[in-house]
């Protein structure tokens, strides 16, 4: 195809696609960014752009602590799910093909469910009369229900880990699925034990998928506000809740916008780091 200079080279369909992208993605984002520059005086927005909001959020120590706590939380959830997700994906991959499909579908079904329902389900699991307490009591590990399972940062960690697990497992499954069986046979043929084949062939070939999964988990966990809101209690105050409070409680949209810009920067950094790591030199 010959590519002409300027817009005349694009078909009307391509132009329409560009228009949709600009109108529905870039314009809302840009307007958001623009809000961040507007100061609020006496609960109303003044249309004189300043950097006050950004300076404010960077210099406010409580914002900084919340931000760092949330980043640590997102990192912990990603790291935990990296291990759990890899083990799950590996387990699924080693099943016979018929089983494999059933398990992957079972794993994907929660993705179709409402997010709030999943969090309430986790509340049910972690609550005083919940599944986990019932289990602990039945096993005789505790004599009375533990209330410390809910409304703290650990509850947020557990909830996010459970709810975000499919985002980790699925990309790893895809990466494992893409390993040619012949390559594994070649490893065995050359004398490799199962452990050697895993360390030198399976793991390096599926790591890009795991990195993509970790990136998804990190980005979703760092921006999440519903799970901390519903299971986090006072201790589980995260950056997502901070942003939410500016929009829903304080009605300080410009500060909320400025806070979200920082979150977007974090997401973009995470995505570009993952892109670098998951595209090794050997990939064609």
């Amino acid at each position: 195809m010959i590519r002409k200079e300027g817009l005349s080279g694009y078909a009307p369909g391509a132009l329409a696609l560009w228009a949709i992208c600009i109108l529905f993605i870039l314009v809302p984002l840009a307007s958001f960014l623009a809000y961040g520059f507007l100061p609020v005086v006496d609960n109303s927005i003044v249309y004189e752009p300043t950097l006050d909001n950004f300076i404010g959020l960077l210099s406010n120590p409580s914002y900084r602590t919340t931000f760092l706590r949330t980043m640590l939380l997102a990192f912990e959830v990603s790291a935990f799910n990296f291990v759990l997700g890899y083990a799950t994906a590996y387990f699924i991959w080693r099943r016979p093909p018929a089983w494999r499909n059933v398990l992957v579908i079972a794993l994907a079904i929660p993705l179709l469910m409402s997010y709030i329902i999943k969090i309430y389900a986790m509340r049910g699991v972690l609550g005083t009369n919940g599944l986990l307490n019932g289990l602990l009591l039945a096993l005789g590990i505790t004599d009375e229900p533990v209330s410390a399972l809910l409304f703290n940062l650990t509850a947020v960690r557990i909830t996010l880990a459970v709810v975000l697990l499919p985002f980790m497992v699925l990309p790893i499954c895809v990466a494992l699925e893409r390993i040619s069986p012949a390559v594994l046979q070649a490893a065995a043929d050359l004398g490799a034990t199962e452990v050697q084949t895993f360390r030198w062939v399976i793991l390096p070939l599926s790591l890009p998928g795991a990195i993509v999964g970790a990136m998804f988990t990190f980005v979703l966990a760092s921006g999440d506000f519903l799970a901390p809101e519903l299971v986090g209690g006072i201790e589980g105050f995260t950056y997502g809740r901070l942003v939410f409070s500016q929009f829903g409680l304080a009605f300080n949209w410009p500060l909320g916008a400025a806070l979200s810009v920082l979150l977007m920067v974090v997401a973009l950094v995470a995505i570009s780091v993952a892109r670098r790591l998951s595209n090794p030199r050997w990939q064609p």
Partner: protein
Amino acid sequence: MDAPDADSGHEVAGGKAPLLRIRGLGVRFQDFDAIRPLDLDVLNGEFLTILGPSGSGKTTLLRTIAGFQPPTAGGIEFDGRDIADLPINRRPFNTVFQDYALFPHMTVRQNVAFGLRVRGIDRAAREARVGDALAIVELEDLGDRYPAQLSGGQQQRTALARAMICEPRLILLDEPLAALDATLRRQMQRFLKSVQRQSGITFVFVTHDQSEAITVSDRICVMRSGGIEQIGTPRDLYYRPRSRFVAAFFGASNILEPCRVESAAGTATTVATPMGTMLVQGPAPRVREGLALAVRPEALGPLAADHSNRIECEVVSVSFVGSETITELRHPQAGQVLTMKARSDPSARLPAIGSRLEVGFDAAACALVTGAET
């Protein structure tokens, strides 16, 4: 050729112990035999090709030897040791896979070194041996490339070096040239043959391409629907096929049928064909039903003193196709048409169409074949 169990290849073994001894090996998938129980000897240092059409069981046989496919019957001995129950990674030989199966995340050097790495050989020794192996396959300059950056032929040579690095006495090759274009294929055939000769490693090579088999092999084992049809040298199979299947697999033949054995004198058999009585070298086959005499077009020629068989024919057509001249002849009584292929001779006069021509062929250049037409 006269041994009763000639199909196992014993007659060529000649007392030398085989490197690989396969006895009664069978592979059964539910209700169908991928390999009917068969015997096969692979001699030390030979280039043995397993040749057959798709579905003949050749790849299954190779995969069973390699250990990827457990046999349902029989045994495999390597160097006198039973290896049927040995896991893949403990079998003392290596495989070159059809699609090369290179490790995509490793460089050529790392791919080749893999076998040494799993054996815990230290880096310095590894580097030296990998360097030698890369020199053999002429890839010294590409050691740091990844498989995705290599051409098909280069990937092929990497796979060969990787299989050779641990100095196995046997290498199994599963249609390794199937993905290459015709020119590269011929080049790689010569290359494989020379590597095999210089290294002295026994090669068991699977292909469906009969010209490839003839080019590279010391011996060819022709397979058909899970069984061994015939084993022999390329010349054996070409000139002395035992079945119509083998005859047809290696190219066109003139088929004279029906044939009836008149007398057998141990080293030669006299048969009655519709075109007269013919002498065939070798003993009479055990099967006497459905016999036919197969004669290669280039074995036929204008009658000469050393021809033991003669046929008087009528010339139907003569076509000059450059290096060869193809003459079609009809036998007046039998009505059958024979094809004669001869090197074009610039000084010879082409026979006139409709003229009589006496042609002949040697008793050693024809074979009694059995079986239905394929």
